């Protein structure tokens, strides 16, 4: 593993060395390393590009790292990863994609992650996207995440994309079963001429299902962002969508949250706000000795924390 690989892995998966537990590292479209454990088995798909991850029932306090790195300019790939998580599990899944493009051709990673989460299982899913490199070639990522939750199952999904990705079009769908919980925390910062679009469907299908979306974004320079979070209540359920964006410079943000109740006992709330950093916030931090620029950075870092 060279320095660039190590840096990308650290950025997207906080990996300082070989991770504990199961892992599968994909580099430039090929398998670069894999470890299975007694409870977690990773298989290469035979019909298309990607992997199947099988997590045995009652697997608890284990993790799977499945980072993807691209360092070749002009590489375009489409990957399908399917997760089969048994009943009564408690696991962390750390995905993420890092692109280092120092060439002039576009590098692109499109991925579809599908989760089948068994009864009463809890999954924390982290996905971080990162791009770098001084080439003129674009860095593009179009991730899709689809999760089906059985009764009592929980997924907490955290997606982060801070700088470096020129264009992203994301789709997330979570179907929550009875007594289950689906939550998405999305953090996004775009700059330059970047564009980002995030569309979500959270379907609260079962009795007493709950859903939560917290989306925080910052758009700088001439970047563009569009959000379409939709929460649908099909039964007695509770759902909350909260989208907050800070807009700066010549950026543009469109936020179109939707709540759809197909049952009279569905209780759904949405809040959306777009605004500049308040001048008072900057001034307050300046009275604590920070420069205007330091104050702005602290406010943005806190907002996206």
């Amino acid at each position, binding site marked *: 593993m060279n320095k660039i690989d190590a840096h990308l892995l650290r950025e997207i998966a906080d990996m300082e060395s070989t991770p504990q537990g199961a892992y599968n590292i994909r580099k430039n479209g090929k398998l670069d390393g894999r470890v299975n454990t007694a409870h977690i088995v990773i298989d290469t798909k035979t019909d298309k590009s990607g992997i199947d991850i099988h997590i045995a029932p009652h697997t608890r306090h284990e993790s799977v790292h499945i980072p993807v790195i691209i360092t070749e300019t002009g590489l375009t790939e489409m990957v399908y990863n399917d997760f089969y998580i048994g009943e009564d599990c408690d696991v962390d899944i750390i995905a993420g994609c890092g692109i280092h493009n120092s060439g002039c051709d576009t590098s692109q990673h499109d991925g579809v992650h599908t989760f089948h989460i068994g009864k009463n299982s809890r999954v924390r899913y982290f996905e971080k996207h990162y791009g770098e490199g001084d080439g003129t070639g674009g860095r593009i990522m179009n991730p899709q995440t689809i999760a089906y939750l059985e009764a009592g199952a929980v997924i907490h999904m955290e997606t982060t994309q801070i700088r470096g990705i020129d264009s992203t079009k994301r789709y997330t769908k979570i179907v929550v079963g009875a007594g289950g919980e689906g939550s998405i925390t999305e953090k996004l910062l775009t700059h330059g001429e970047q564009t980002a679009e995030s569309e979500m469907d959270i379907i609260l299908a079962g009795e007493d299902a709950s859903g939560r979306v917290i989306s925080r974004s910052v758009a700088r320079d001439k970047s563009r962002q569009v959000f379409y979070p939709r929460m649908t209540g099909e039964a007695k359920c509770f759902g909350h969508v909260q989208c907050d964006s800070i807009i700066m410079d010549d950026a543009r943000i469109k936020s179109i949250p939707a709540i759809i109740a197909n049952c009279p006992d569905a209780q759904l709330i949405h809040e959306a706000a777009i605004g500049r950093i308040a001048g008072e916030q900057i001034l*307050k*931090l300046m009275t*604590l*000795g920070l420069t205007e620029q330091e104050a702005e950075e602290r*406010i943005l870092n806190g907002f996206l924390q």
Partner: protein
Amino acid sequence: MLEIKNLSYQVPDESGKELGILSDVSLTVGDNKFVVITGPNGGGKTTLAKAIMGLVTPTSGQVLWNGTDMTDLSVTERARRGISYGFQQPPRFKGLRVRDLLEMASGREDLTHEEECQYLIRVGLCANDYIDREVDASLSGGEVKRIEIATILARQAGLMIFDEPEAGIDLWSFARLTETFQQLHEEKRATLLVISHQERIIDLADEIIMISGGSIVQHGPKEDVFPLILANTVSGCSYMNNGGGEQ
């Protein structure tokens, strides 16, 4: 020592005529004094305090702190040279925690839990309940205000300006706060400039400055000025008091 020399702040009114928010204000505050600024609403108290911190740029005049002319320095520079300011209505921050503000205020990222506790206890808050909370809309106005005061305590600046610290704070917490002001004064490590209308805070002061109509109308030892303020307290409306409402 804080010296204000001929400070004026004028803004044009609707007709373009200059309106004096502050008119030729001069004053000197000695080291480690506790000075309360009081006076009617709209008299210019907050503008004066903000002009000292650099949050308002005066039309003319000078602000000197410890002999250095601060007039052309930025808010950041003034803060770094020992001026601090507690906002009357502090802003909220989505994502910044109480701990973050205390660390920024103290300029140290290695504040111990014990130190954080001390700052929060002095404003009547328990660190265990508050230290990791975001300073956002989930906190009440009184809580945000007390956290604001805690940041000023953590800053440990030579000049502490508080703009109506009592505003929005419940009676029980207010009692704790007056004790804190008293302690700060007894420690003699900072000059305290407090805008307040509260008798219990005024009672702690060495000096009282009364500002009205953009000018200092009284400035002297508490013992001399406080009786004058009480004697001049007029209830109601001057138009009605002068018989203007009679048929």
